[in-house]
């Protein structure tokens, strides 16, 4: 996030910032933590760690700036440093492949021509949630930040410490992977009309 000079807050001001700027985002934070860890207990720990870190480093936060993005960045870093290491399959995205994909002339191709709106509307169970969960964590993260939380490219670039161009290409790739996954579900539901 932006390099902001350290703020000088009184104890009361710290409490105000914490209660009025940080705590309102706890539901989004918990949902983000849950999607990353896919475990309720890990999500609880991650959110708790994030808020305690946010309090400890509260003087790096400038009042009135984007608290939600600041908190998401802390949670994402905590996840990478503390949780991802111990996960069964540390995920790795082939960024070269992503960039090559995005920059190729093939970018306009329709990847899932058989996925239809009608079949999506019949997905009333956990299909969409399972499809999202099945994505590599880096792809899942950009979908969550953009589609569920409404962050802009610039905010996502700061949360994830990546250039805006990479945000854009990763999001593009993530949407296509999600569609591929949904297309597989649609086929198992009998919508194999390709």
């Amino acid at each position: 996030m932006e390099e902001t000079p350290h703020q000088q807050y009184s104890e009361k001001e710290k409490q105000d910032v914490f209660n009025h700027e940080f705590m309102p985002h706890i539901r989004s934070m918990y949902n983000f933590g849950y999607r990353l860890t896919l475990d309720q207990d890990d999500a609880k720990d991650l959110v708790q760690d994030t808020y305690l870190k946010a309090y400890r480093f509260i003087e790096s936060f400038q009042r009135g700036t984007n608290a939600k993005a600041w908190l998401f960045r802390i949670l994402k870093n905590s996840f990478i440093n503390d949780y991802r290491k111990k996960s069964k399959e540390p995920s790795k995205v082939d960024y070269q492949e992503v960039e090559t994909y995005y920059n190729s002339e093939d970018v306009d191709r329709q990847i899932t021509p058989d996925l239809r709106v009608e079949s999506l509307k019949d997905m009333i169970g956990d299909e969409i949630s399972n499809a999202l969960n099945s994505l590599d964590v880096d792809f899942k993260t950009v979908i969550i930040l953009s589609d569920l939380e409404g962050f802009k490219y610039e905010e996502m670039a700061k949360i994830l410490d990546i250039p805006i161009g990479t945000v854009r290409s990763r999001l593009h790739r993530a949407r296509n992977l999600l569609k591929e996954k949904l297309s597989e579900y649609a086929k198992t539901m009998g919508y194999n009309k390709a």
Partner: protein
Amino acid sequence: MADLNSPFIKSDGTKCTCMEMLQQMLDTEVTEEQREYFKKHIDHCLPCYKSYDLEMTIKELLKSKCCGNDVPAEVIDQIKSQINQKISF
């Protein structure tokens, strides 16, 4: 392909393709002028209309199915109690 009046312009000065316009719309990285243009564009571009409809349906599904977990009350209690402990030291 976008026409000459398209307000979707890349950094190199060329016009965006349909897919590029669509992505900007989905990522909500558009101006009001671009949004209006795209809405008119999909009235006569069936591939764009179909893709946009599909992508927006996915977005709505995501929103309705993937962010509905309430925070367990004990998480909030634990955070508050730990912060209060820090303050009292």
